């Protein structure tokens, strides 16, 4: 039996533990401080401290969130923050061209992995990985570090889509082109009728963003890696790409491309199409389709936007490259001063159904109200940081660019809000056209060490060479340039990178 002294000792120990437990429990009740960086210079939220949506998020996750707007080059700012030990808890979306950099952060141990308490706090993030197997490529040593900034699950075409004007097609008595021949014919007709300066796309960054349908017609995606020769090879080296580039060159040689296209960025190209200067554009899809239509109506009510399904070149294949439906990743700071568990709670809430709805339409009763089962927007919405027009996505800036893009269904919801049946039917049709023919790709998110070194060089080589190829004077010249490109690419580090990537991808896609 215990002596009295021993009992006293046990009692004291128990009392102390109880006090400590109670103390920690009490401390936990205070909100956790979470620092979020955002690159979104949106003026729509004048004062983040008073933002009602942010307040809702804080309430739901028991956190005290500080939003810091950063400018300049994001990765540099983050690198600086890492070096000076001021990394935020939530690092905003870093684009796919920087996966090498984000990967480095993870292997350097400054990011928090979604494991243990962090994983427990963010079941919705884990669920995304289960729903979309492509995301497994993002894992490093089997661990999740990156939260995809998504608008949908699975893969779907997104870029390099061909837009035309339905009203012009009707005017010329044409049906929407199915083949490149018909498409070129449409462009020619527009030109002959003085309706056109030529097709536009964002050429200031090179031609590769506009190649999706062109290489798709020859069985190659316009990004990532493809299965070939018992392994994986880079898309740009495939014979089909050569064919696609020649097709593209043909379009330029015949004078069907706007002469100023190589100076154009996305915005200028879009403006040329919307304002009727050009009768066709190679551009993004999804919500952009509706927003283009809305803007066109302001210019001329007769204009009608039409998205073509991927075109056929008679080579037995067609399709737009289908890519994972997210752009870039968000990540959690994992340095000593960070609180990844609380940050994970915030992310988890923002990607949950409830959080998504909150950032899409705001608080019920304040920003929207439900009438006959339908959500009706209220004026307060615009005052609290939601864009007045559809803008990017129609959602609160906290969602856009920060931790999640806005799911397509909510983008569509705000796009179609208040629109009639015709518009809805048309939009459904466009959405179906976008995905009618697809070209799969692999390994967009995979990073081997050599590839992460070589990728920037590769991007530059592709941008320069492909642009020169499609602009070249003769077909022979184009072919010679392409062969030179393949040689350069392999010689300057591509061969090693490709070998490494092939091995990695073979493991994932046996």
């Amino acid at each position, binding site marked *: 039996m215990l002596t009295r002294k021993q009992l006293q000792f046990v009692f004291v120990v128990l009392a102390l533990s109880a006090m400590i437990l109670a103390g920690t429990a009490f401390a936990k009740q205070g909100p956790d401080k979470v620092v979020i960086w955002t690159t979104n*210079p949106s003026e729509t939220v004048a004062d983040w401290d008073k933002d009602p949506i942010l307040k809702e998020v804080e309430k739901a996750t028991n956190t005290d969130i500080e939003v810091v707007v950063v400018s300049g080059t994001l990765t540099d700012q983050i690198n*600086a923050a890492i070096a000076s030990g001021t990394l935020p808890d939530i690092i905003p979306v870093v684009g796919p061209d920087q996966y090498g950099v984000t990967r480095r952060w993870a292997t350097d141990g400054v990011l928090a992995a979604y494991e243990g308490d962090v994983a427990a706090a963010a079941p919705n993030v884990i669920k995304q990985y289960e729903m979309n197997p492509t995301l497994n490529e993002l894992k490093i040593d089997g661990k999740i570090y990156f939260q995809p900034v998504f608008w949908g699950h699975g893969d779907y075409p997104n870029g390099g889509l061909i837009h035309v004007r339905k009203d012009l097609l009707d005017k010329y008595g044409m049906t929407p082109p199915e083949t490149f021949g018909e498409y070129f014919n449409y462009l020619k007709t527009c030109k002959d009728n003085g309706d056109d300066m030529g097709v536009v796309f964002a050429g200031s960054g090179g031609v590769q963003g506009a190649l999706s349908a062109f290489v798709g017609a020859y069985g190659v995606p316009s990004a990532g890696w493809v299965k070939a020769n018992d392994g994986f090879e880079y898309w740009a080296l495939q014979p089909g790409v050569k064919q696609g580039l020649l097709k593209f060159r043909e379009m330029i040689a015949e004078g069907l491309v706007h002469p100023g296209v190589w100076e154009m960025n996305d915005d200028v190209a879009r403006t040329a199409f919307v304002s009727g200067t050009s009768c066709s554009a190679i551009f993004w899809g999804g919500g952009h389709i509706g927003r283009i239509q809305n803007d066109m109506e302001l210019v001329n009510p007769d204009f009608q936007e039409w998205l073509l399904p991927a075109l056929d070149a008679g080579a037995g294949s067609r399709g737009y490259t289908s890519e994972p439906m997210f752009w870039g990743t968000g990540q959690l700071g994992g340095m000593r001063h960070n609180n990844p568990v609380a940050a994970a709670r915030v992310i988890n809430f923002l990607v949950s159904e409830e959080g998504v709805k909150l950032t899409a339409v705001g608080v019920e009763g304040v920003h929207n109200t439900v009438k006959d089962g339908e959500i009706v927007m209220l004026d307060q919405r615009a005052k609290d940081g939601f864009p007045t027009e559809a*803008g990017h996505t129609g959602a609160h800036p906290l969602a856009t660019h920060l931790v999640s893009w806005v799911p397509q269904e909510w983008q569509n919801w705000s796009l179609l809000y208040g629109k009639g049946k015709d518009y809805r039917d048309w939009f459904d049709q466009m959405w179906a056209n976008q995905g009618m023919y697809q070209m799969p790709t692999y390994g967009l998110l995979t990073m081997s060490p050599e590839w992460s070194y070589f990728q920037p060089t590769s991007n530059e080589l592709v941008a320069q060479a492909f642009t020169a190829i499609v602009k070249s004077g003769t077909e022979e010249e184009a072919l010679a340039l392409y062969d030179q490109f393949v040689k350069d690419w392999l010689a300057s580090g591509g061969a090693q990178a490709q070998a490494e990537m092939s091995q990695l991808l073979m493991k994932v896609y046996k």
Partner: protein
Amino acid sequence: MSRSPRRTMGKLTLAKFAIYCILLVVFMLAFYPFFYTLFMAVMPYSEYVKKPVHVLPSGFTLDYFEQVLSNARLVRAFANSALRTFVGTISSIIVTMLTGYALSRKHLRGRRVMNFLFVVPMWVSGGMIPYYLTIRAVGLLNSFWAMIIPVLINSFNMFIARSYYADYPQEVIEAALVDGASQFGTFWRIIWPTSKPLFATLALLIGSFHWNDFFWPSILVSSEWQPAPVLLNSIMTNRTLLFGLGQGARIEPQSFISAVAAIQIIPLLIIYPFLQRHLVKGIMLGSVKG
């Protein structure tokens, strides 16, 4: 005398006529881009699309200036530019003058070493990344002062100041020192009041640098403090601001950008003629021997 004055005159007139013609062409080539930008900024876009060629302006509107000035971010950026130019120019002139004066004193020990220190960075630099890391290491990153402190002095301006003071009538300085004035007192009471040409030269050189500088601020300074050229460049190369403006208002990028550029140029056009006399004088001061 083989030539009569009259013949010389005639020959000269013909040659001169050619010279004047060439210079007139040079003048137009030099000035036309400014002129074009200014008239693009005030010409209604409707006029622009009406005619295929625009060598001279037609129509007049201040709409685009209004658009620019109604954008809070741009106005803030111009305010930043003005503040930065004012603070940066004044502080830099003072530091440059003081250093230039001290290093111009022939009897100062260590003068040659200090001079040499200023020569090397004219060609050798650590490069972009180490510079960036240095700014970060001293804690200036993302602050307004990142645009001021690192550029307080530069070798070229220092040499201008130094040679200006080396030219200064030395007897005056020596006399003051012999009379028991301190070095600083001499500078303040005798040198400073007579440094006007140098001040004007430096003001124009440093001021235009501060007003125009865009590359480093775009990297080193947080968005709230970014000066106008940074924003102008991002309007031209990215779609960021145009997107933001696009919500609700229709804008014509060409006219809008011209208006932003015009607002950048106009202050220079106003100030420049007043300071030009001093500038040329200052450059000559730096160049004319002894």
